[in-house]
């Protein structure tokens, strides 16, 4: 058998069937593996793509990565319409079902705790962009500066204008964030996105995720909508509802730590905050041979 078991998410048993036409990675239909009162959502993936060596190469291929990421998210998204899934990180793969069952047994308490905390909640992504202004597109001064002093002066004026725009955007982002946190149970600040990867216009100045109970989601969405015309030159974008991807780490209070960690040694910060030892374990075992 050349198939491996790819695990998308873990959730509680749910009554509503998944969409019949739902496909996961490589077009395979996801199946539900019930064990110990939990459900692992799995599908079979080819060893040709997901063996250690192959996967390493595959992950470097942006097209493959994009397709796989979309398929992964597609399954999580479908689950989100019927239950509260705990999304696993991309490319969590086991040899067979019994290995998946062992994984569930080893972590069932943790899964249950997370499900208790996240059940009935979804994640909303809110991004604030500073729109590019026409003036900015033509920054070159008409006359060449006569001296260094002139250059510095005009440079200072430019910086000043930029600084003012940033301050406005910051103020707006901060006030929006304050209002949104009142209606959310938790939040995470993510790194601003880069235009080239996201394809979005303008500059991303805030990229946040909010954990919101489903029941209050409509209210939350309305609030975001209302702010959209509040500030000229600033754009607000809403995505979701997502599964609570950003909130599967330990707990609140981690927020500050995580954000700070993200700046410098994200990996270290995360390893400490999340499933302790997992990252290190995976790394070490990677050096040796998998069973």
């Amino acid at each position, binding site marked *: 058998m050349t198939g491996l078991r790819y695990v998308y998410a873990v959730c509680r048993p749910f009554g*509503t069937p998944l969409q019949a036409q739902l496909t996961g990675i490589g077009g395979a239909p996801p199946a539900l593996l019930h064990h110990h009162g939990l459900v692992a959502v799995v599908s079979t993936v080819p060893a040709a793509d997901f063996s250690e060596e192959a996967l390493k190469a595959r*992950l470097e291929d942006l097209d493959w990565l994009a397709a796989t990421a979309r398929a992964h998210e597609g399954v999580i998204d479908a689950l989100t319409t019927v239950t509260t899934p705990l999304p696993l*990180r991309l490319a969590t793969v086991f040899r067979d079902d019994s290995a998946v069952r062992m*994984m569930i047994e080893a972590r069932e308490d943790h899964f249950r705790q997370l499900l208790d905390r996240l059940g009935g909640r979804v994640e909303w992504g809110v991004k604030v962009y500073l729109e590019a202004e026409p003036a900015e597109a033509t920054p070159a001064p008409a006359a060449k500066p006569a001296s260094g002093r002139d250059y510095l002066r005009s*440079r200072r004026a430019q910086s000043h204008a930029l600084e003012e725009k940033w301050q406005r955007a910051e103020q707006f982002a901060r006030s929006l964030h304050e209002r949104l946190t009142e209606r959310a149970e938790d939040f995470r600040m993510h790194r601003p996105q880069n235009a080239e990867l996201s394809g*979005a216009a303008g500059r991303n100045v805030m990229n946040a995720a909010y954990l919101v109970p489903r029941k209050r989601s409509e209210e939350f969405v309305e609030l975001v909508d209302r702010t959209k015309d509040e500030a000229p030159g600033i754009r607000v974008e809403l995505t979701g509802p997502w599964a609570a991807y950003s909130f599967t780490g330990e707990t609140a209070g981690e927020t500050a730590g995580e954000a700070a960690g*993200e700046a410098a040694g994200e990996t270290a910060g995360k390893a400490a905050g999340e499933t302790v030892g997992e990252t290190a374990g*995976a790394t070490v075992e990677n050096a040796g041979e998998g069973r």
Partner: protein
Amino acid sequence: MTMPSRLPEPYGQGSGANLADILERVLDKGIVIAGDIRINLLDIELLTVKLRLIVASVDKAKEMGIDWWETDPALSSRARRDELARENAELRERLARLEELEPGRAPKEAP
């Protein structure tokens, strides 16, 4: 209340979410479990860093002053002011050096 068995449809996630939104979640967030296939999780971290660096040209972002997240997640502008001050000093220094190198261009010091 709507049908309890089906939860509300997404508000346009399919259209609103870009690849960056998806990647930052499926690669960076979610529960980390070491499966049987031991891909080095650091590889994934590296990959995302690579995506950010290459595709996204972080340097350019820094140049534009978009670096607050590196020092202060709470949208601090102090870091940026520091950066501006530093850059300013650097520019002054470079300019002074340049003007020294080109005596013809420095009118007051011309003999």
